[in-house]
């Protein structure tokens, strides 16, 4: 009987250690998000988080749209100077 209990406990201990290591190493965050919950980075809800509706009876569309202004493509950086070739003796 003692042998049975010892063996079972050892198996459970090994399994618990394995499961514990696995679950601890899985968080993508350096620390738990404040407030918990399922939201990204633990961001919490407050009135106004999602803003007022852009449709419905109280909605008036904005009249000014700024033309998108694309930044110029970045120039490629100059290549580094070629390394001097080692001279043979």
């Amino acid at each position, binding site marked *: 009987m003692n042998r049975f209990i010892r063996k079972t406990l050892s198996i459970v201990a090994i399994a618990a250690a394995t499961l514990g290591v696995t679950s601890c190493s*899985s968080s993508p965050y350096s620390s738990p998000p404040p407030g918990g919950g399922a939201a990204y*980075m633990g961001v919490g809800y407050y009135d106004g988080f999602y803003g007022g509706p852009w449709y419905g009876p109280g909605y008036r569309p904005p009249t000014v749209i700024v033309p*998108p202004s694309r930044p110029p*493509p970045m120039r490629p950086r100059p290549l580094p100077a070629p390394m001097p070739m080692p001279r043979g003796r």
Partner: protein
Amino acid sequence: MVYRIVLFLLVVASASTAGAAPERIPPLLPEPTHERIPGKIVWADLFTTESNTTARFYSSLFDWSVRTIADAQGKYVILSSSAGPVVGIARGPDRKDGRPASRWMAYFSTDGIDDAAAAVTQNGGRILAGPGAIPERGMHALAADPAGALFGLMTSTAGDPVDAEVGEGGLLWFNLFARDPQALAPFYADVAGLESHDGRRGAVMLTREGVDRASISPLGEETSATATWVPFFKVASMDRKLKLARRLGAKLVVEPDTLENGTRVAVLADTTGGIFALAETPHSEESR
């Protein structure tokens, strides 16, 4: 025999748990640039109560692929075009009334995220989360400006995407719609180092080192709409994309209009109320 069965079951349980280990959110760029372009908007997340619905909507509209990352805190989705990752969908907090809701958040690149976060609160804004590290991706903070528009700060470990031509479905531009654009310019100057100059009819252009990075344009006083950063996605054909967007359930909230530089723009609400814009540039068809 009993021991063997118990051992087998535990090994299976252990393996299945290890297999379900959450993925990590990947770096911002598949190919690191190690360039830092402070003040540039380098990423956008849709914060939503409905990750699946919105992922289906945007992936159908722009023909993007969907990669779902289920982490310990909830769900994060990366939507990618053939050119690479375009935007993310982050699980947002539930509304008190349980109704679906979404809002876009633009991330500014910064090389000093703690100072930038401090500047948010010093200038009347609010830090909602962070700054904190997301391994592989970098340092993040989520914030709201004094007008209530959500935005993020990011120091990407892979560097920032360099300025390049934008393809179909790519992020072409960001505009903040707000009641008083002039009042917000000093806020983004202190937080993101952006200079401002007056645009037409009360709009403000935000620039850094001579490059336009974003704009702020006025919302009318008598409207239910509140300040929001809006991403502009480049499309090859406005008419075709509008038709598809409506079929998918989007609402048109600003009618299509051709602006002075020849770009045709329309603003829409997705099926959960997230506001985004389509932009057909004079060269859109050529870049297909």
